């Protein structure tokens, strides 16, 4: 079990290091600067926590403080990355920016309200089950991230917007991570302190899956949509042209 815990703690961060190198080699940090900053931050956070756990074994408080501050910044970064993905896919299209911004603003406002109420309910179950405020924040952030990503996927599917490979991979990875973290919050609430290790393993494995997905999408050849055929036949074009002539004459 101890090996598994160390594996899930260290391995995803090693893969993340490979991802950062891949990003730098392809110059993708210019295209997705916030995501790049997030990955660098996650690596720094891991190195700090690892060092603290090795050299300050007597001071559990220092470890907790680094973890608490790191989780706060991590949540902020994850929201910023979702905004970056939305901007890359939808907001950069001027015709969609205004209506989509309104939809996302409403979704975020409703979710914020819902999770505020839900967090309250969660903390009332028992003080032992919910360690501290941070878990409530973690729960809220997972719900909002899940919902925003689902809205983003639905929107792009409804409008038939195609994704570039690595953008799709980042969104998919974040979506899986957020949903696993949400499930983990529920499991922690259900099993209490006896299930902490199992839940932590679940969350770490979620992050592992997420990083592997990012790597696969980064290193697989870009799947540009493959089209065959000539498109609009000339006879059809003539019909569209007739329609246009009628409009011009009107």
């Amino acid at each position, binding site marked *: 079990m101890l090996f598994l815990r160390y594996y899930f703690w260290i391995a995803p961060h090693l893969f993340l290091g490979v991802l950062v190198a891949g990003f730098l080699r392809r110059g993708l940090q210019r295209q997705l600067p916030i995501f790049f900053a997030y990955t660098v931050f996650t690596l720094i956070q891991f190195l700090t926590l690892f060092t603290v756990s090795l050299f300050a074994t007597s001071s559990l408080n220092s470890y907790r403080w680094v973890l608490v501050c790191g989780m706060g910044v991590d949540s902020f970064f994850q929201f910023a990355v979702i905004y970056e993905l939305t901007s890359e896919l939808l907001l950069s*299209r*001027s*015709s*969609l920016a205004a*209506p989509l911004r309104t939809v996302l603003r409403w979704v975020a406002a409703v979710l914020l309200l819902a999770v505020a109420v*839900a967090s309250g*309910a*969660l903390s009332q*179950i028992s003080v032992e089950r919910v360690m501290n405020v941070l878990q409530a924040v973690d*729960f809220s952030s997972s*719900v909002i991230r*899940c*919902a925003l990503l*689902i809205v983003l*996927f639905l929107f792009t*599917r*409804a*409008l*038939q*917007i*195609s994704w570039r490979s690595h953008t*799709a991979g980042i*969104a*998919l990875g974040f*979506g*899986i991570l957020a*949903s*696993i*973290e*949400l*499930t*983990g*919050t*529920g*499991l*922690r*609430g*259900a099993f209490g302190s006896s299930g902490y290790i199992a839940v932590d393993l679940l969350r770490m494995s979620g992050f592992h899956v997420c990083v592997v997905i990012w790597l696969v999408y980064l290193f697989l050849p870009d*799947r540009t*949509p*493959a*089209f*065959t*055929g*000539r*498109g*609009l*036949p*000339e006879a*059809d*074009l*003539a019909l*569209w*042209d007739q*329609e*246009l002539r*009628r*409009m*011009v004459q*009107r």
Partner: protein
Amino acid sequence: MIFPAVIIVAGLIALVLILRLGNGHGRSGGNLDELAARLRPIDVDAFRNLIDEREAEYLRARLSPKEFRSIHRERMLAAVEYVRCASQNAAILTRLGEAARQNPDPAVGGAAEKLVNNALRLRLYAFQAVPRMYVSMLFPATCLAPHFIAETYDTMTRQVVTLGCLQHPAQGMSGAL
């Protein structure tokens, strides 16, 4: 215990949804001829007539309230069908436009980009228009006619022809523009 169970179920549902939705994004592309064959012609004038407020006023003045409600419902149902058809065409044109965007000629690429943007705008309008027309069916007094659909469809038609002229110059349709 119930609340954590709800969170667990919600998390699992979200996971399945994200996997399904995320997986579908790799399936763009396809046969352009098949796509083009799925385009359905639309009589924009007939659609304009269906959503014309003056026409509705004329009918309201000449028919009994019961008859008017029934006729209005029929007209709105027909208009919804037109909007759905226009939205379907816009989805197909988005993909045809995306294929044309890969053309090395910058003029074709630019025209395709405009077509894609306009087709996306039309689909967005269609999402807003359909519920509004259903509301209008229930409450005929409310004026919720989606004129912008017809206008956007007109613009999209112009862009299809422009793109077609650029891709098939032999057709010689530029005179119409």
